[in-house]
């Protein structure tokens, strides 16, 4: 059991951590996350006894850690660093056996029990076949597994990991964390994982501490801590948090497609779409900061999903049902609030012809209408030519036809910001 009581930490006279308190008990799997510079690694160094806190105390099984002998701490806490560099060509087995150091007297050689423990942890990490190789000759992923084997050979109740997989391929990443999760469940090993990968946290940790500027922003069960609001205020990134259908755990997804995290509010644009025809454009507009609305689509179709994820207001119609007059009017209201309308490349049938009519109505009322027309209308007209005729009217009445989404976007930018050079 490890208990951290109101600690402050300094690095070269700069206060890095303020007022940190938490505790872990048998079987806990705690994640520590936060942006770069939030003090994650400093916290881990403090609670592992490397860095003494300037205020507050760390208790290891009710004992003040600052008063404990390093060797005794080493029998309780093992640490896996981000990466390890070894200059001299020790064999893999020699390096793993160094994990037994806290149990051996100065001139004592590793005994039967030590060698058993070394072999066991090498088998667990699947590094036994490397035992006689030189650590200078194996790959980075293999070396990290060897270091983990060493930490397991240390036979501790607590295992700390500092970004253990940030240099590894995804196959090693999964292998490492599945193994740690298994040991956590089977042996009630207490695990503290520092990482910037929120999805790893969501998948493997039970508890999470979110650090922000050297303080605990919030802590608790992962589901309670990992919310869009918390991520927004800690990382300044809009993120999606959902339950993953395959893993059953929640996952986060940063909603930022252009690399810009924050954009100023821009004009309102209405997108007439459906069936997935407008998703890409909707995302792009949203990302550029436009206030987007959409309609009318059937509930649960691809555009509807995208709009829900992005929190875009949308007029939805019941699945497989034609557009009702009510939805038509709602759509028109949204259209009238917008600066411009884009008509995505939808196939038209009897059910959604009202969408086309709404666009024509908008054009009549003097609004700007941009129509994407890559596939000629007669190829996607399932209304015996009625849609094609409306298209011809639209063309005559001044709607702007473009060949794809890209052109539509640059046109919209040009129309709405005539001064800016693109």
């Amino acid at each position, binding site marked *: 059991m490890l208990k951290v009581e109101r600690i402050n930490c300094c690095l*070269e006279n700069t206060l890095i951590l303020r007022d940190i308190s938490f505790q872990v008990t048998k079987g806990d799997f705690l994640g520590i996350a936060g942006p770069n510079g939030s003090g994650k690694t400093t916290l881990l*160094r403090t609670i*592992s*006894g*490397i860095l003494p806190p300037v205020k507050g105390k760390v208790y290891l099984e009710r004992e003040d850690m600052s008063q404990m*002998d*390093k*060797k*005794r*701490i*080493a*029998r309780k*806490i*093992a*640490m896996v*660093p981000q990466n*390890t*560099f*070894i*200059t*001299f*060509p*020790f*064999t893999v087995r*020699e*390096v793993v056996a*160094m*994990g037994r*150091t*806290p149990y*051996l007297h*100065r001139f004592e*050689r590793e005994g039967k029990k030590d060698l058993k423990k070394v072999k066991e942890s090498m088998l667990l990490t699947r590094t036994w076949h490397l035992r006689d190789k030189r650590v200078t000759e194996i790959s980075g992923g293999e070396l990290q597994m060897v*270091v983990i084997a*060493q930490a397991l050979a*240390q036979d501790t109740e607590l295992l700390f990991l500092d970004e253990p997989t940030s240099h590894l391929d995804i196959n090693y990443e999964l292998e490492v964390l599945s193994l740690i999760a298994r040991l956590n469940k089977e042996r009630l090993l207490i695990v503290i994982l520092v990482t910037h990968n929120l999805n790893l946290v969501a998948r493997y940790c039970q508890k999470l501490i979110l650090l922000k500027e050297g303080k605990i922003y919030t802590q608790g069960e992962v589901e309670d801590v990992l919310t869009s609001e918390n991520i927004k205020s800690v990382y300044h990134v809009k993120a999606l948090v959902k339950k993953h259908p395959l893993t059953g755990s929640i996952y986060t997804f940063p909603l930022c497609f252009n690399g810009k995290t924050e954009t100023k509010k821009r004009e309102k644009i209405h997108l007439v779409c459906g069936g997935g025809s407008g998703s890409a454009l909707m995302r792009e507009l949203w990302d550029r900061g436009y206030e987007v609305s959409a309609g009318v689509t059937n509930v649960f179709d691809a555009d509807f999903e995208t709009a829900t994820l992005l929190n875009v207001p949308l007029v939805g119609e019941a699945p497989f049902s034609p557009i009702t007059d009510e939805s038509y009017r709602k759509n028109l209201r949204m259209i009238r609030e917008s600066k411009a309308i884009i008509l995505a490349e939808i196939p038209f049938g009897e059910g959604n012809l009202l969408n086309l009519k709404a666009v024509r109505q908008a054009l009549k009322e003097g609004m700007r209408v941009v129509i994407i027309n890559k596939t000629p209308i007669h190829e996607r007209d399932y209304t015996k030519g009625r849609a094609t005729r409306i298209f011809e009217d639209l063309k005559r009445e001044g709607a702007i036809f473009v060949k794809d989404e890209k052109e539509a976007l640059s046109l919209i930018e040009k129309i709405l910001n005539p001064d800016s050079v693109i």
Partner: protein
Amino acid sequence: MLKSRRKFIGFLLLIGVITFWVSLSMGSVSVSVKDILKIIIHRLPFLNNWIKSEPAPQKYELIILNLRLPRILLAMLVGSGLATAGAAMQGLFKNPLASPYVVGVSSGSSFGAALAILLLPGIFSVPLSAFFTGLVTIFLVYRISKSDSRVPVETLLLAGIAVGLFFSAITSLIMYISAQSVHHLVFWMMGGFGNANWDNVIAATPFIGFGIPAIYYFSRELNVMQLGEESATHLGVEIEKVKKILLILSSLITASAVAVSGVIGFVGLIIPHITRIIVGPDHRIVIPVSSLIGGIFLIWCDSLARTVIAPVELPVGIITSCFGAPFFIYLLKR
């Protein structure tokens, strides 16, 4: 594994004994092994009453006891000491290019020797001054590198280079302004055992004799330190303490070696390498084997230095480099 290590150390001890006898008999006057045995047994307590035989000629006794024996013992001490200190420094700095001189001890000692040669030349003043300034250098370097009760090895290395260069500059200045004693100083800076006597042996023995086993005492820590300082701490090593002790021990050894024999290059850098190539990187074996190979190597180099163009002597540093460098290149390319 363990058995073969013991065998190897036994083999080295045997070579050491052979080296010792052969080098005693070598020289401008060659003395037979039988005579050497007589001379030494004659001097040993108890044994001299036990074995009665004709004493060896008087002049042989003088050559063996007053010239060759102290010289060979000193070469052995210095060779073992420098090789062990080198192994410790390479482990401490996690850098195979580190040597006993890496933290500026040699430049500091040279400065002390130069100062003594200039101001109060004497048999004792030069080595004493060299020893003292060598130690001052290491404390200076240590103080410069210390920040927040921690001594980062990178800073230590750089501070060592800076302080070393500073002392070298002052030594050059001294040499420049005191033209007549330059020859003496140059000979000292090249290093050698031409002035070896029993006083030197007695002066160096306690430091080197204590330093080598003391470094061996920390060989497990040296191993664990190869994982990085924080990882070593997580394995229960009091890293700052161990670092300080190892630094002091290797500096003591180096400073006393430099004080009695000048700056002999190469041994401290190369011998630990050769050792690791032969026995692997485990310091529990690297430290004792380095000290054995270092001692043997330097005895041979010195024997060659005094016989190659006898009666003229070569500075031993020339020999160490001429033999060590090609051998090292061979090992690297093997």
